[in-house]
């Protein structure tokens, strides 16, 4: 590899050809501030428009300042990062951004989590020397995401996520000059677009321009309504990230504290979406085996591969972009919706509470879950199976409002019967987890033999597209995994072309799966946080005594008492769904 010698702030440094000034500087402890730039290491996600110009540095011999984030080093280069010229330019640029920004930091949803706020603080901006017209746009509220683009600073991170990573193509820059802003085509509302509500735009937005719809107020009102029984379910990825909101190290598992906090907030029952994840495996796994057995028996009409259907953004994606494939995904509802459906039937009967008086709240790492719970097919007579879907971030806000010292909480256990779960359910929170959970159950049912091993390393990892072949006692089962909708698109195009070799494919919309969901604590471009959450998820799995969904005793009981068998008529009615052509 060709090595390049240069100096940065008079310090000599040797880096490989192709390295940027920013990267070379960070290697020797020089922290050049950036704003629009974002890179998720090892995940092939990079936003580098060179647009904000905050990272400009002086390069000897060059007429203008150079953006460190996208200027590659050259031999003998002399870089100075904090000359008066560079610092003045950097501060002026930030002042200019602030001069066109609503100064409502104190009450902004992103206050305390805003990269622009941090930058102003970092650079010690104490006065904005520029004033004039400010951009004014109407607020756009959708079922999941709010766009307040007065606060857009044109960093284009959302655009990179929406176009390059997710290939959804809703958000892009529109208009010119001072009026340039990121918006859907013709500045339409999000809910008139093909937006999947994956929330990756929200996850990377440096300011308060893109945030989730906040439903904490509605949940507080439900909790204080004496006529209501309020129950809560928590998705697997939440427990691996919630602690970050309270200053805990990324990847700290806070399952017990989370349960304790929810109980203190006044939820009557604290349940686990993981229970419904086990249920999903029973339904989806059975569906897979049915299709697989028919296929092996030579039935040409059977549709393979089967695709997972837990992820609402993914569902909306194929409904818009691949409606002709809508018969392929599993008809199983997502764990959130299975939970809601069982809670408002089986559990409501059990505790003798009328459906209307039972409020189901879910805590999700996701903003699309808000949209999913609002889909009309998941309501009975206008009463939704899941009343409110809060993000991990919203739960943290509730906990703070509840005056709860989160770190000091004891560990508590979920309530029963909808709180018991297996290790297979926990790993639903990461890419590869759903299919691994399905394999653990499908293998034993298909072969009638106990699994020789529980950990399928070949299904794990962070590569956007992965494939593996699992030997079902002589029958090779080909499995594909995609996270990020752009990767999903590649697998779908293979299926369209009749070139797919897979029997089953797992798809999660967010990079990393639910651990990287749009509703999680902000990662601020640090991919290491996602990896730590992933490790936490797998360690929770290992720590569980039961690690196969079909061995969850409460699941067995649910079938015995209520549903009959997986894929029974009742199961179909309550736990399965259909898809729509939204093209």
């Amino acid at each position, binding site marked *: 590899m060709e090595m390049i010698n240069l100096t940065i702030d008079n310090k000599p440094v040797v880096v490989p050809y192709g390295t940027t000034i920013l990267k070379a500087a960070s290697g020797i402890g020089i922290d050049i501030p950036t704003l629009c730039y974002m890179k998720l290491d090892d995940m092939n996600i990079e936003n580098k428009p060179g647009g904000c110009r905050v990272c*400009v540095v002086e390069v000897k011999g060059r007429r*203008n300042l150079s953006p460190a984030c996208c200027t590659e080093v050259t031999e003998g280069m002399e870089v100075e990062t904090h000359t008066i010229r560079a610092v*003045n330019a950097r501060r002026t640029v930030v002042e200019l951004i602030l001069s066109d920004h609503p100064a409502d930091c104190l009450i902004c949803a992103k206050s305390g989590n805003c990269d622009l706020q941090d930058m102003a603080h970092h650079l010690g901006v104490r006065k904005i020397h520029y004033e*004039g017209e400010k951009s004014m746009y109407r607020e756009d509220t959708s079922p999941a995401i709010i766009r307040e683009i007065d606060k857009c600073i044109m960093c284009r991170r959302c655009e990179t996520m929406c176009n390059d990573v997710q290939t959804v193509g809703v958000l892009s*820059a529109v208009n*010119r*000059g*001072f009026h340039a802003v990121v918006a859907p085509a013709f500045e339409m509302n999000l809910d008139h677009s093909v937006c999947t509500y994956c929330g990756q735009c929200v996850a990377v937005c440096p300011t308060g321009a893109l945030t989730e719809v906040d439903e904490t107020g509605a949940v507080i009102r439900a909790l204080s309504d004496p006529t209501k029984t309020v129950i809560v379910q928590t998705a697997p990825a939440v427990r691996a990230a919630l602690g970050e909101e309270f200053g805990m190290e990324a990847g700290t598992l806070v399952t017990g504290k989370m349960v304790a906090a929810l109980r203190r907030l006044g939820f009557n029952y604290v349940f686990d979406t993981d229970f419904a994840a086990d249920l999903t495996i029973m339904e989806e796994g059975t569906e897979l085996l049915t299709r697989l057995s028919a296929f092996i028996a030579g039935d040409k009409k059977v549709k393979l591969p089967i695709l997972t259907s837990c992820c609402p953004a993914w569902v909306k994606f194929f409904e818009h972009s691949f409606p002709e494939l809508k018969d392929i995904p599993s008809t199983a509802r997502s764990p959130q919706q299975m939970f809601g459906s069982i809670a408002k039937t089986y559990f409501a009967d059990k505790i003798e509470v009328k459906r209307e008086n039972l409020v189901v709240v879910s805590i999700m790492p996701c903003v699309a879950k808000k949209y999913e719970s609002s889909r009309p097919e998941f309501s009975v007579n206008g009463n939704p199976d899941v009343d409110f879907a809060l993000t991990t971030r919203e739960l943290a806000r509730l906990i703070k409002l509840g005056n709860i010292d989160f770190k000091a909480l004891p560990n508590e256990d979920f309530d029963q019967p909808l709180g018991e779960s297996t290790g297979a359910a926990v790993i639903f929170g990461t890419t590869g987890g759903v299919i691994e959970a399905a394999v653990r159950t499908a293998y034993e049912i298909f072969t009638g033999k106990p699994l020789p091993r529980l950990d399928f390393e070949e299904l794990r990892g962070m590569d956007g597209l992965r494939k593996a072949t699992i030997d079902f006692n002589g029958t090779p089962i080909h499995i594909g995994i995609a996270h990020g909708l752009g990767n999903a698109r590649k697998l779908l195009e293979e299926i369209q072309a009749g070139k797919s070799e897979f029997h089953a494919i797992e798809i999660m919309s967010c990079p990393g799966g639910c651990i990287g969901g749009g509703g999680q604590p902000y990662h601020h471009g640090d991919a290491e946080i996602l990896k730590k959450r992933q490790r936490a998820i797998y360690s929770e799995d290992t720590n569980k005594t039961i690690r196969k969904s079909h061995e969850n005793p409460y699941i067995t009981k649910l079938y015995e008492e209520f549903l009959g068998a997986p894929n029974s008529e009742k199961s179909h009615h309550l736990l399965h769904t259909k898809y729509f052509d939204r093209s």
Partner: protein
Amino acid sequence: MAEYTMHILVCGGTGCKASQSELIKSNFKTRLNEYGLSDEIQVILTGCFGFCEKGPIVKILPDNTFYTQVTPEDVSEIIDEHIIKGRQVERLLYKDPETQKTVSTANGMDFYKKQIRIALRNCGFINPENIEEYIGRDGYGALGTCLTEKSPEDVIRIVKESGLRGRGGGGFPTGLKWELTRKSVSDQKYVVCNADEGDPGAFMDRSILEGDPHSVIEAMAICGYCIGADKGLVYIRAEYPLAIERLKIAIRQASEYGLLGDGILGTDFNFSIEIRYGAGAFVCGEETALIHSMEGHRGEPSVKPPFPAEKGYNGKPTNVNNVETFANIPVIINKGSAWFASIGTEKSKGTKVFALAGNINNVGLIEVPMGITLREIIYDIGGGIKDGREFKAVQTGGPSGGCLTKSFLDTPIDYDNLVAAGSMMGSGGMIVLDDTSCMVAIAKFYLEFTLDESCGKCTPCRIGNKRLYEILEKITDGKGTKEDLSRLRMLSNVIKDTSLCGLGQTSPNPVLSTLDHFYDEYLAHVTTSSCPAGQCKALVHYTIDAEHCTGCTLCFRNCPVGAISGEKRSPHYIDQSLCIKCGVCFEKCKFDAVLIA
């Protein structure tokens, strides 16, 4: 083919077309038909003659008679007098403003005397819609020479030695650009012609494409041969319909003649050209933005490197040159690099086309050798300042350029001298300003253009230029302070220093150059709340000098808002609370009794 004894050339440039030159042409045809002369005399709609001030132009060959400001009604007289009787129509000939003598040929006009037409060599001479006429003037000879007698390296060497630099504004050495693209290794390369001419008032590229499209096609093919590309793309703004039409005709004819397509001139060189339309965004003249636009993406620039020579259209090595640059190429090949390099200054060779506009007598398109002085352009070619007023400044380089004062009138014009003077060559806009121009307002005018045309990608250009504009607005509104002047300079420098592309890096030039050369004028706005040129409405007051006012009531009768009162034959008075400062009273007064202060 008929052997014509006479040719009538009617200017078909956009300007003259707007003045009914097509009707002039058809009137000629009709009348010639009536006389049965259609087979002897040919009527051609040509490209722009350049002397737009006096358009529509009609030129008669072989005697070279140059008629100006011809109307469709004049056609009969020209035919009856000139064609039939052989007598020039005196009243349609150009009259020298100084000597008042009529001049019958272009060569005799000051407007043309100092011009050297290389890029515009065929404009106004040939029918751009007939490839034979281009071939008749050595057209496609250069391509033939290159393909059959020279290696790509030889051709690149000739272009390098000629000293030709990019005429689109940047002034990058053309031969070097070709060499860099040639060196990039790829299975596919592209030649792109930048015809996205966006400088307000500049129309040289349009004129070349309208008047001599084959010169560009030939040069693109030569470039393709040199860099190893078999595909050419012309990026042209959709609001140039005539240029597009003529380019399409030219591409079709060149293909029919085997000068485009596979196996050109019996060699194994293949080259084809497609047209891509732009929506008229100024920033799409920047080559990376242009490429993004051609790819179907938002027209906004990206950081260089990588340069298009390495990674351009569809990620492939791409050579982007502007129309005027290409138009020079065939001549350089035909006449040799030494000939071309003998014209111009040490570092800027050849000629440059300028669009001369503003408060000048001869508005039009001119091609002059590098090294000519502004004085020669403005006074000799341009015929001096309109209405005999005083020269104040000349703005070169369009919205990215700067204003030059009297002290630069004798500076030889080339790329480097213009930059040293705080302006730039740009694509060749040249706007002459007289003493009635307020330089603060001029800076604001140009900035308003950049503000509209910024793509908004980078902060300094998106918000910085807006704030710059707002400060200028504050000053012209009479609300500026001295601090604003230093703020203007500081912000301008940061915008130049930090913007992503050439648009932002040059957008404060009009502000900086006027601050440099006309600081007193700025100072007057902010310290004494006055506009020395009397242009900034907020700072101007119209009053009536009672001593000179005769009470003729002309101002009273013309004031649109009834702000003037007074009795007949006694001094009138302007009510300042009603006055909208339109200036009508000032213009109408025959006794110089209306004063501006």
